[in-house]
């Protein structure tokens, strides 16, 4: 038999709670929302916390994965550099000398093909030695007088320089074009060159030591009909404005390294340079 519901005090209290719920529905909308906000913050705090912890864990895992990949890459790079360093240490070492030289003359047609510098054989400079600027390779010495030398720049039509892409390690031969830039000759169509790649001297071209900065790739146009990849390079050194260069020389009496470091195989042209530039 059912006991009368509303008789006991428990029943009255329970009904009170139920009526309270109904009464809440009659409270104005805005008041209900403002009253619920602190309750919401308190009651949902564990959920928010768990979401934040879960997000942090997810971020930490992603970061851990990224750093692991980076560690692997760095380990590979470290091993490569160690191998390169051991190879370099095993070979003969030659102390190179940098000789600073102001530019005192230029060719009068383009200002870019030839430079005259105010250092010569009396300063230890010899034909065939590379000439650089703080930005990158500038050219090479092709003739020396006692006090002056003639420098053939990278942009001289006869200039050729072996370069190496430091990202993809692809070697190629660079020559100047008529727009003050360099282009690559004989770069295979499958070779990996992208705009922005930095090129350094390859050390296989007999004049320049390996690793001197030459320029960066500005464009690799897609020409299906071309036999080789047309890669255009902007030289780092602005030879039309350079005012001071450095000649890389071997110390007196030292023999040049073989292989990638230093080979001099180009005979200097028969050029006679006066001790003082013309007109001075």
């Amino acid at each position, binding site marked *: 038999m059912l006991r009368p*519901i509303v008789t006991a005090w428990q029943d009255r209290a*329970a009904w009170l*709670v*139920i009526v*309270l*719920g109904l009464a809440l*529905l009659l409270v104005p909308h805005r008041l209900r929302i403002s009253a619920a906000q602190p309750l*919401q913050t308190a009651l949902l705090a564990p959920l928010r916390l768990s979401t934040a912890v879960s997000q942090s864990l997810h971020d930490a895992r992603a970061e851990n994965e990224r750093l692991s990949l980076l560690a692997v890459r760095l380990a590979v790079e470290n091993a490569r550099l160690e191998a390169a360093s051991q190879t370099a240490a095993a070979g003969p070492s030659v102390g190179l000398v940098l000789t600073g030289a102001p530019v005192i003359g230029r060719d009068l047609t383009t200002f870019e093909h030839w430079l005259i510098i105010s250092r010569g054989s009396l300063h230890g400079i010899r034909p065939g030695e590379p000439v650089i600027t703080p930005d990158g390779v500038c050219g090479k010495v092709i003739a020396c007088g006692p006090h002056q030398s003639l420098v053939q720049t990278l942009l001289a039509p006869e200039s050729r320089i072996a370069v190496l892409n430091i990202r993809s390690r692809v070697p190629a031969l660079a020559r100047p074009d008529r727009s003050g830039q360099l282009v690559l000759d004989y770069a295979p169509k499958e070779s990996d060159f992208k705009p922005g790649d930095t090129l350094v001297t390859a050390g296989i071209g007999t004049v320049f030591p390996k690793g001197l900065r030459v320029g960066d790739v500005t464009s690799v146009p897609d020409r299906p009909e071309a036999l080789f990849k047309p890669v255009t390079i902007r030289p780092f050194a602005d030879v039309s404005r350079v005012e001071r260069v450095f000649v890389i020389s071997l110390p007196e009496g030292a023999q040049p390294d073989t292989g990638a470091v230093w080979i001099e195989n180009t005979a200097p042209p028969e050029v006679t340079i006066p001790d003082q530039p013309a007109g001075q």
Partner: protein
Amino acid sequence: MRTFVAFVLLYLLFLVQASVTPWWPDLVLLGLIIVSLHENRIASALAGAFAGLCLDVTSPAFMGTHLFTLAATGYGVAVLRTVFYRARWATFLFTAIALALKWAADGLLGTGLPGLPVMLVSSFLTLLLAPLAELSLTGLLYHGWQTA
């Protein structure tokens, strides 16, 4: 102490309920029905009010809907359980009635009905889970406790 643990359990069920989709079974309702099968009338009504308040904060614009519905459910189960003393199908019946009350309150007073597929799936899963919830929660909360 037992009642306090029951409230904590309902809060934990609410946290789970708040973080899953509407297709899930109504865990808070199931928990409340099981608690109300063992607590006295006022504790059942208060447990329902607490569970309803928790659910109401997720939709503050309709605050009071769940509080009213679940307080009535808790009280109703505590009253009706004496009629069906320990009958196994009583839990099914209570759950079905509570679900009907809940959907009616949602439709008439609350946020509105979620759509027939969601209602059917959620109700079916809730009914399916009812015996299991009774067995597990009764074993967890009410075995080994000294009754007052």
